[in-house]
């Protein structure tokens, strides 16, 4: 299988549309095609009904009769300092073949020695996924030929994975209808990554980069518990949060640190057995997962409705982000035989209960625990999901309320102006100069009336951009709110005196002009006047009989 796979990658257009998808007479024609674009164009002519624009509408209509069954295999690249079986470092984006050694290049005579961090990270994730850990597991060799696989086999775990039978809890976003979900985890196992192939423009040869070869991965296999693209995308997002909270991976999908392959099948509602499943690869974002699955569900259901369900075959399809559709990569000809057998170069992996307990005790608060805690604080589900999404934001929030800040106000500030600022400036919460201490101080200053909310906002931007303290800025800029009625009255009098025309109009019934006067007074006070007091005094003056 893997042998033909290479050609598929090397000259992808050749195998994009095997004859199974089209009338046989076209097969030869497609095999001689040179460009992907041309093929996709032809493909669209053949199946114009699968237009993306109509996709979600159609999905709504047909999903009444069919249900999709979705399972996900996720590869998480571990952020260990060195590779799984040698002491090479791995840095994404390094020059090709600069972080390699005899071991990860698979030179004759080189042997793997397990990096103990891999076990630690696997146990962490296994525990976080509520799995049962195997006290005795082992490594196996998964054998196939491929130029990015230097040893001709991948060191993996076959029949005894390190963790099995867990689950993951998550809350769907409110905008997608919300709701709590629990998806089963079949297994978690350790393995090594392969290298990368770089295909040259003219396709006459390919280059092998082994930097990534031997980087540790955890493969997480879910139960087929998901039913929609959104559920699948949220599952992946929760997994990303989990690995980031645990610090076992950066979970970055663009760099390939988190890679999801989804299995999709559909069946008429009420049917117990699964339909034929199709594997979809090349999903580089959560939205790609969601859209690819929805496309695939639609494709399969349409085939069912058109009486062509036999066209749904066990195959691997690629998500084409440009065309927003899945296309055949390769058909499976029976099960690939990887000739697994126990890796004789590595001893068994034996976990002691003490070791496991030690790791369990050191686990941080996980996303699900955070969400439940925030929920109990009285925050809305939208707030809860936002705050618990990013561990750094959550830590910032926790630190802010630990300084005594009001929970709801702190949440609003973080989700509002702070989030907007971070987005505009493309900064993370750790990169802005504002500290939780000062945010708490700011909130307290507004709540206590020292400064107005408007001034508070101004200070906030100053704090985020340059740092400093709330107290320092208030003093430095003389921003303390004016709450002395006499002083405010003086300013009101001045403004009224300077605007006789407007006063006349106001008293002539154009009461909307109150806002104008308020604005002028606020301007005069440089924004420091207490707005409540200001309006009260202003109204009194405006309405006073002269």
């Amino acid at each position: 299988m893997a042998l033909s796979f290479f050609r598929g990658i090397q000259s992808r257009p050749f195998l994009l549309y095997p004859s199974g998808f089209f009338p046989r007479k076209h097969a030869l024609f497609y095999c001689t095609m040179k460009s992907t674009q041309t093929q996709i164009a032809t493909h669209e002519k053949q199946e114009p009904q699968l237009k993306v624009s109509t996709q979600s509408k159609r999905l709504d209509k047909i999903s009444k009769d069919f249900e999709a069954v979705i399972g996900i295999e996720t590869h998480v690249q571990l952020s260990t300092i060195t590779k799984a079986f040698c002491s090479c470092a791995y840095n994404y984006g390094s020059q090709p073949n600069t972080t390699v050694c005899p071991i990860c290049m698979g030179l004759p005579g080189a042997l793997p020695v397990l990096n103990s961090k891999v076990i630690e990270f696997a146990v962490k994730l296994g525990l976080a996924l509520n799995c049962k850990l195997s006290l005795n597991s082992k490594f196996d060799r998964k054998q196939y030929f491929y130029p990015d696989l230097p040893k001709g086999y991948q060191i993996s775990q076959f029949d005894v994975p390190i963790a099995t039978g867990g689950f993951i809890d998550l809350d769907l976003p409110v905008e997608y209808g919300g709701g709590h979900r629990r998806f089963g985890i079949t297994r978690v196992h350790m393995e090594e990554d392969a290298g990368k192939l770089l295909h040259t423009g003219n396709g006459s040869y390919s280059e092998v980069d082994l930097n990534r070869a031997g980087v540790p991965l955890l493969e997480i296999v879910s139960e087929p518990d998901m039913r929609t693209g959104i559920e699948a995308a949220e599952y992946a997002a929760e997994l990303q949060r989990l690995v980031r909270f645990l610090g076992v991976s950066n979970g970055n999908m663009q760099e390939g640190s988190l890679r999801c392959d989804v299995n999709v099948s559909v069946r008429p509602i009420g049917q117990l057995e699964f339909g034929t499943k199709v594997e979809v690869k090349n999903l580089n974002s959560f939205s790609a997962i969601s859209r690819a699955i929805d496309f695939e569900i639609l494709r399969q259901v349409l085939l069912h409705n058109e009486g062509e369900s036999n066209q749904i075959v066990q195959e691997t399809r690629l998500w084409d982000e440009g065309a927003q559709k899945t296309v055949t990569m390769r058909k499976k000809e029976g099960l690939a035989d990887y000739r697994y057998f126990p890796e004789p170069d590595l001893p068994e992996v034996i976990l002691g209960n003490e070791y496991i307990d030690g790791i369990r005790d050191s686990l941080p608060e996980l996303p699900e625990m955070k969400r439940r805690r925030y929920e109990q604080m009285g925050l809305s589900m939208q707030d809860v999901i936002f705050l618990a999404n990013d561990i750094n934001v959550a830590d910032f929030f926790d630190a802010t309320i630990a300084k005594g800040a009001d929970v709801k106000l702190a949440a609003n500030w973080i989700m509002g102006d702070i989030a907007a600022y971070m987005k505009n400036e493309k900064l993370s919460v750790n990169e802005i100069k504002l500290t939780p201490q000062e945010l708490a101080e700011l909130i307290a200053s507004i709540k206590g009336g020292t400064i107005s909310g408007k001034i508070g906002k101004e200070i906030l931007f100053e704090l985020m951009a340059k740092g400093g303290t709330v107290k320092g800025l208030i003093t430095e800029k003389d921003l303390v709110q004016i709450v002395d009625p006499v002083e405010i009255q003086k300013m009101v009098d001045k403004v009224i005196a300077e605007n006789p025309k407007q006063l006349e109009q106001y008293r002539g019934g154009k009461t909307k002009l109150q806002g104008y006067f308020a604005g002028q007074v606020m301007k005069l006070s440089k924004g420091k006047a207490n707005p409540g007091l200001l309006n009260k005094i202003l109204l009194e003056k405006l309405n006073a009989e002269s």
Partner: protein
Amino acid sequence: MLSSVHNPRFLLLHYRWPNLHFPPKPHRQTTAKALHTTQTLTLSSTATSPPQSQILTIRESLLSRRTTAVELAAGYLNRLRRTEPHLKSFLYVSDTVLKEAEEIDRRIQRNEELGPLAGVLVAVKDNICTADMPSTAGSRILDGYRPPFDATAVRKLKECGAIVVGKTNLDEFGMGSTTEGSAYQVTANPWDLSRVPGGSSGGSAAAVSARQCVVSLGSDTGGSVRQPASFCGVVGLKPTYGRVSRYGLVAYASSLDVIGCVGSSVADAGIILHMISGHDRFDATSSKLHVPDFTSQFISRDLLESKPLKGLRVGVIRETLDDGVDPEVISLVRGAASHLEELGCIVTEVSLPSFSLGLPAYFILASSESSSNLSRYDGVRYGNQVVADEINSLYGDSRAKGFGSEVKMRILMGTYALSAGYYDAYYKRAQQVRTLIQESFKEVLDKNDILISPAAPSAAYKIGEKKNDPLAMYAGDIMTVNVNLAGLPALVLPCGFVGGGSTCLPVGFQMIGAAFDEEKLLKVGHIFEQTLQGCSFVPPLVADDFAC
């Protein structure tokens, strides 16, 4: 020229072997001098004197400045040049031997400390990686391949001052029992050039036998050090699995492979083992057990009591003295058993009922692992690459041209045994047999100190005799494969000759010990060797160099 009468052997009872560690301690020189050897640069003296440690002799003669490292090296190199056209035991001979010897002489002149193996010429089997020499494993697919690193065992020997003289011939990837399976040349047996030296470490055994080097490293997956040692009349030591790091040993069957030592005396094999043993952070299967000084219990012949091995329980494995074994070999092994009895051992016959299961189990497991281990020779990164239009032909043609027929056969057998649907019937079953064999060995070794058997069913046979009969060749491994399956240490040492006159061929017998008890094997082997009368295991080809 010299007399063994003046040679009190090595007073090893008093000899502090740890002194051999690198860097040496200052008092070593006096210790070595205390040997009072009157020999010059020589090996065994008369036909009947027992073999002695060439390593200690060299050390003594260097430290006493009776000879120089260059003279020593030149002596070996001259003999190597003279015999190599007949033997073809080397695939590569280093051109820096004399330079390295000169450096040792300079160190001696400057009174600098010397490594315990300073000036010792070591040959290394070509499936063990050496950074400055080709390492082909006897295969075309690695033609011209030079590893960027030394195998741990080689590195350790170099750190002890040894000079690597070259890379020795072998059956391709260690798969074979005659060294005829080399892709490059056929090595001859120094005792009879028309016969095979055994294999797969045939080059290493022939080189030591013909005194082309002092000692050599081999590898033993199913008997590849021990059987050629028997065929060539030298001492072959297969350590416990895990005793010596496999890092840098081109893998054949990872769970069976060990690096072994070949020497012309038990002492030399023991010294080399001591130098290369121990845990290696580059081999997860290497043992962290303490490495004792394997030679500390050696007793000089002159100090031996009449029954030096009194009470030692020796089991003769009944199943190994059965049909299919040359009657002359059987009588030699029985003779060795009697000899041990005379030394005080309690010799009994023991049975290993699972013995005959070893061969099929071995071939399943070794083939399975080799089919996987040899996957990396795909022509993509190193070794021979065939020009091809696409990747499948690149793989297929590179491997078709690069591998010899025996290797291909084992890859096919192993691939078959690991295939879906056959795994349980073959690989898994063979693993169960392996467990059975381990248990039955443990049972008899609980009641016996050592077990003995022939090292091979016959003495060396003719070149070409079994080349087209792989099953007959495989059957020749019957004496040794069980030991690899059980992971135990075994020592093969010469115990006599079959035939006579010009057709006289050496035969070794095998002593098997408990896991990690090489010390006992070496002690018994040393006493056996020192007390064996009337045998000289220097082949006629080079005997003139050692005549009185």
